[in-house]
């Protein structure tokens, strides 16, 4: 599932999947603007069929945060 997650992030940010890791975020990925951040959240919601709370949405600073919230919603992320 991590692969699926990384692929989706890479697709939205328009970067190679290999450039994504747990620490990726607006600081390391230039195309990760605040707008792209919203787009990512909503595409994650429809891909993983979850609804983030507004607190969770605001809390996302890097990929590991997304992983944590997805896990809280019962999504199993194996490598």
């Amino acid at each position, binding site marked *: 599932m991590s692969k699926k997650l990384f692929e989706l992030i890479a*697709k*939205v940010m328009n970067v190679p999947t290999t450039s994504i890791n747990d620490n990726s975020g607006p600081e390391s990925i230039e195309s990760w603007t605040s707008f792209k951040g*919203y*787009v*990512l959240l909503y595409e994650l919601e429809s891909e993983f069929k979850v609804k983030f709370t507004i607190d969770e949405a*605001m809390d996302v600073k890097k990929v590991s945060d997304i992983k944590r919230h997805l896990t809280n919603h019962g999504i199993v992320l194996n490598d």
Partner: protein
Amino acid sequence: MKEEKLSYYVNKAAELNNHSFDKKIRIAILSSFTLNGFAETIQVKCAEKKIQCLTYVGGYNQYNQEILNSQSALYKFKPDLTFLFIDTRALLQDLFHHPHTISADERKSLVNEKTNEILGLTAKFSEITSSKLVLSNFAIPTFSSYGIFENKTDFGFHRMLNEINNKIADELSKSDSVYVYDFDKFVTKFGEKNVFDYKQFFFGDMKISLDHIPYLASEIMSYVIGYLGISKKCIVLDLDNTLWGGIIGEDGFNGIKLGPDPPGNAFMEFQKTLLSFHQRGIILAINSKNNYDDAIKVIQEHPYMQLREDNFASLKINWNDKVSNMKEIAEEINIGLDSIIFFDDDPVNREFVKINLPQVEIIDLPRDPSEFVNILKRLNEFSVLKITQEDQQRGKMYVEQRKRNDLEKSSPNLEGFLKQLDLRVSIKTANDFTIPRISQLTLKTNQFNLTTKRYQENDIKKFAQDKSYLVGCAQVEDKFGDNGITGVFIVNKNNPKEWYLDTFLLSCRVMGREVEKGIIGYVIKKAKESGVQYLRAQFIPTQKNKPVEDFLPNCGFKKELDSWVYSVNVPFEIPNCLTVSTE
């Protein structure tokens, strides 16, 4: 209709930078809220239609200042089309939540106040720029704190918003520069809870959810298609499993599925919707592999057929391949293949046409006929900014055209045919009734068009008011019916000795009947009466206007460098198959 995600459009738009297409449009987007990604989506959707689109996105909630200041970046951008989205919250501010804290009378005056505010803004805009403006109307929230009592409330919240929408629509209905986009209907179509997402609103003042921006852009493309005059004109249809269920050659007249019971009712409904398109002027034609006699019997006699022979401008029912048939249909009706949309249930036929005639738009018809109607209804390919009287008649006119063609085939020669046609050409001046059609013809005519200059209604209005221009059009009638206004001329009279033919065109509907000679004869006569010595004209070749190539020399114009000149003292003979009259 399935849509891509917003990220697809945003990323794709970034790759479009160096693309250049012949058709170009400049679009400005103004809004009272965040509409990120919308411009990119429009750019990509334009590129899919081979249109190069440059966009300008106004500052967040800066629409008032941008419109009121004639020096603003908006006007410097010189848009062709400007979209203005103002949301209901921005319009009503505090009263959005508390509309019942003021009296019904106060709500009524608020309607006037807000309507005038918006109309003032649109008027100011049109004063400064020639860009068309598309103003979205106001989404009416489903919620009211009055609940089920809302519509018992004197001039309640919903009624008030309806009134604002209706007033604005009424005031602008006659305008040819400002259009109202029914955003409220967009919300109805996709559902308020889908279009408006509270989390996105709280998070980033997004009043249209990111998932729905591509859908909104799709709808907005109708204006781009209409503005550029690239709407489709003709629907070509297969018969078996498209207009009726089953195969006539196998199932027979009584075995095909068409009638009030399922699944025959799906085909009947599809035909009814097609008929409504025909009534507004879309041409229908048939391209089907079948025994002619079997199929025509259904079309003529089946009690539940909604479309009859008289609704089709061309009926290619034979065993020829669909590509040859398609080419013949285009030739017969005299339209470009790029004006055609093709409906066929068979994926093999679709692929075959797609590969050989990529200009034709092919609809991927699903197997389930109950989906046909919605597919047809969702097409925005027929969008026009104006439907003229000629347009409404067009479907019928092409059927008359088919009858003319039959007469032509049975006539021994062209001369005999034209004589029998009893052609009457009436020359009309540019006035409120004819100006929309004149503009439309300049925008749409590609084949018999000497200079292919495109003019919006406002341009034609200016010419018509300018004493140094002569603008007119020709209505053509014959024994089969009225072809409507099908010819246009615009003459620049600046030089009292020599007039210049700025525009001369003929709709493909009346090509090949010497009508053009009747019209040019009128222009020459006018020139002579005004003491002018020469009429100068130009032929500017394009990929499509070969049919007009020989027109000037055929009329006796003499070549002079890159233009053609007619000495008006040389008598011009109008062919005797025509009767030309003036108003």
